[in-house]
């Protein structure tokens, strides 16, 4: 793949947060790239580093508490890690859009919807208030908010949760970004609304040629919309695969456990919880971070395994000494 085919490239990303008096890694050596129209799903349980990865890409890490320690994040040939804040500000909302988990709190309660949707266009495209309003109406129609023209002056509290998430999508897509980061976009919504919102994102992705980075812990969502999957555990990528290969042959013991813990319609067996819990940040084991909860643990696991191909497929890699190709 050349850079021209890639919307977002992340290389060796290392993100740290400040706990006590030390910086601890919450994202370690994460690399991936996404092509236009492709959806990459980042999967893992709470605290695995998936949201920190998204916030790092977006440049929204809380200052003083979190920082990027190393790595490159390249969009449009610009490395966001090396760039100054003014450049990052110019890219945010223009080349990169983001939708958040909580549609109820992510919109400003005291500003009208039309203004919030069109604001990025005033900032990045120099549109007047009036032009931005016109464009906001088109965007709300694009995300299928009924009676968009009349609702431009409405406030967030007058919308339902699903409608607010549509507004958030319109807001994130205002400047036709190349990359859309969706951090648990459907977690706070009803199941029926979830499907509508996911279908909407997929539809817009096709129309606008978006690259989507989807953060989720819902493997059902992954199976229905993602092209590729990255599983994270304790800040490490433990498995990365095309979606078909992942569901056909989950290789890392953690991926396997995640799938076993997922409710399925076609099986009457119970759910299998993953024993134990994620070690705290200050007590992460050296070597494989999943070793403390892994049934296949061996002495080798005291050292961190590399991401190695599985089943001879270079697109499918896993970080496990036991399950790697010998």
């Amino acid at each position, binding site marked *: 793949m050349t850079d021209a085919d890639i919307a977002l490239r992340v290389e060796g990303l290392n993100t740290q947060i400040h706990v006590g008096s030390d910086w601890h890694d919450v994202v370690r050596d994460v690399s991936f790239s996404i092509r236009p129209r492709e959806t990459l799903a980042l999967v893992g349980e709470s605290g695995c580093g998936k949201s920190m990865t998204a916030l790092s890409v*977006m440049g*929204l890490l809380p200052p003083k508490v979190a920082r990027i320690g190393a790595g490159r994040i390249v969009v449009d040939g610009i490395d966001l890690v090396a760039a100054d804040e003014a450049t990052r*500000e*110019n*890219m*945010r*909302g*223009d080349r990169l*859009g*983001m939708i*958040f988990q*909580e549609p109820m*709190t*992510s*919109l*400003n*309660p*005291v*500003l*009208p919807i039309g203004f*919030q949707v069109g*604001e*990025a266009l005033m*900032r*990045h495209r120099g549109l007047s208030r009036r032009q931005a309003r016109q464009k906001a109406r088109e965007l709300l129609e694009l995300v299928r908010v009924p009676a968009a023209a009349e609702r431009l002056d*409405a*406030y967030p*509290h*007058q919308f339902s949760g699903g409608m607010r998430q549509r507004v*958030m999508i319109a*807001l*994130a897509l*205002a400047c036709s970004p190349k990359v859309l980061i969706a951090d648990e976009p459907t977690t706070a919504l009803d199941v029926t609304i979830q499907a509508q919102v996911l279908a909407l994102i997929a539809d817009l992705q096709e129309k606008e040629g978006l690259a989507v980075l989807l953060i989720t812990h819902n493997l059902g969502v992954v199976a229905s919309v993602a092209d590729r999957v990255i599983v994270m555990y304790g800040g490490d990528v433990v498995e990365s695969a095309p979606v078909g290969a992942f569901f056909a042959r989950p290789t890392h013991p953690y991926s396997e456990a995640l799938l076993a813990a997922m409710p399925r319609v076609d099986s009457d067996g119970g759910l299998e919880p993953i024993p134990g819990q994620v070690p705290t940040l200050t007590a992460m084991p050296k070597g494989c971070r999943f070793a403390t909860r892994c049934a296949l643990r061996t002495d080798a696991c005291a050292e961190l395994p590399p991401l190695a191909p599985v089943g001879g497929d270079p697109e499918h890699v896993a970080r496990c000494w036991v399950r790697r190709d010998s």
Partner: protein
Amino acid sequence: MIRFVIKRLLLAIPTLWAVLTTVFLLVRVVPGDPTIVILGDQASAAARAELREKLGLAKPILAQYVDFMGQILTGDLGRSLATNRPIVDDVAAVLPYTIELTIASLIVGAVIGIPLGVWAAQSRDGFADWFARLFSLAGVSFPAFVSAILLLIVFAVELRWFPVISAPRTDALSERLAALVLPSLNLGLLMVAYVTRVTRSGMLKALGEDYTRTARSKGLAQRTIVWRHAFPNVLVPVVTVVGLYLGVLIGNAVLTEIVFNRPGIGKLIVTALNQRDYTLLQGLMVVSAFAIVVANILTDLTYGLVDPRVKTP
């Protein structure tokens, strides 16, 4: 919005009625016979009976209540016991001074307190934050008469920028304004303290909210995020505090008015207390209560302006 205004105004009627009834009862349940307090314990029974008649205290309590309400509804507050002048005239003479002092102090509080609070919130635990916190602590804890004397010594006696006596001799606007500066600064200092604290904590909360992160994700500049996205959300608590402390301001005005030798409602209350002028006191209580009710209505109506959730439910 119009429905909201009408609803709020209608709600004020029972509030005012309750306040007026309380004032009426308060004056009458105070222990001791007012005629003895006024005439002294050597007064003859005949003189006391005459005064009772004059004060309307001889009538049954219900009749007194009806008289009292009737008078107030027609805008009559009775006559002063000490001077026999209509109380309405006395109040009308000093009310403009009280209103201008209150409004000027509010402006001082908002103009200094809001930017100070916003500035402090942005540099949490930094220099600006410590400065604002110290300043507001000093503002709350400094007695008004001490700060008034300090202001007078520095700006009126030493620097001679403003007059020492703040009762203007003419009605010229420049003179009135010059006489207003030090008293409103003094009274406004308290307001600055409260407004700074509320603004600071409100901004800290707003800057951590999800919608602030959304604003950041649009690539907006910090200044835009602070003033356009976070600050409007802080207006509701700020308006609340300003509205609540209007009452405190009216009470604190007494000390400021005395030290700066200004006419005003506060000073009139002290005069009435010193002279045991019960009717004047009752009239002033009615006026103050009325002022606070009006301040509360204005506060509520302002909510409708700053928070869309109030006017568009």
